[in-house]
């Protein structure tokens, strides 16, 4: 070992993001960030909707028409899913931060699955309510 030149030694390499399949807890972590950034963009639509409602019936009709259009509905669906994911994963982070429990590898996997299930469930309930109301 000591007689091989330093450059030829087989050192362990840290996994590179492009060739490394992210484990579920890492995937939920980066998804939290991505959904957070997406929700920041989503606030612009909320501001537009409120400003349009304040501006008058024509401006409101434009904003409401955009939201009810196919592109608007796709964006709303994406934002609702992002919101519920960020909501439930945020609660998971709060539970970790305030209790310092549920931190074992197995528990981080099971809580990740719980978050994914809860966000899918809440998104479905939200859209069932949207079309039922």
């Amino acid at each position, binding site marked *: 070992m000591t007689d091989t030149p330093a450059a030829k030694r087989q050192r362990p390499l840290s996994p590179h993001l492009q060739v490394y399949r992210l484990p579920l807890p890492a995937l939920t972590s980066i998804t939290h960030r991505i959904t957070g*950034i997406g929700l920041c963009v989503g606030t612009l639509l909320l501001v537009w909707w409120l400003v349009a409602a304040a501006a008058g019936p024509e401006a409101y*009709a434009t904003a409401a028409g955009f939201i009810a259009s196919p592109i608007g509905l796709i964006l709303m669906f994406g934002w609702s899913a992002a919101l519920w994911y960020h909501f439930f994963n945020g609660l998971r982070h709060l539970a970790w931060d305030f209790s310092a429990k549920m931190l074992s590898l197995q528990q981080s996997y099971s809580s990740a699955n719980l978050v994914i299930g809860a966000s899918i469930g809440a998104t479905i309930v939200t859209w069932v309510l949207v079309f039922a*109301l």
Partner: protein
Amino acid sequence: MANPTNSFRTPLGRARGLGSAKLGAQHWLAYRVASAGLAVLTVLFVILVLSLIGASYEEVVATFKKPCPVILTILFLGATFHHAAYGLQEVFEDYLHGKLSKLVAIGLTKAAALVLFLLASFAVLKIAFGA
């Protein structure tokens, strides 16, 4: 400058604020407490929005003339933009490596969050107090 050995100040008092962070974990804790509040407001605001599905312009305006929806919406907007600005700040702190670009990005984010919060809140108040 008083000799630190015979000062009345405690060692902790003298050390405070001298580290590279200048501040302790207050902002970390405050962000988490505010997040818990935002979670509650989010559920309430989603219920408000769902109650307005299919509502006409007149119904939306009538809703924002009632005190509870107005107060809830402004609280939600405040908590949301505070959370968004702080969250984006963490993203910039992690991924932007130039001192100046980091400073500019965080500054612009906070300014934009404040302007958007005031814009949306003003809109809600205009409906609430408008004719």
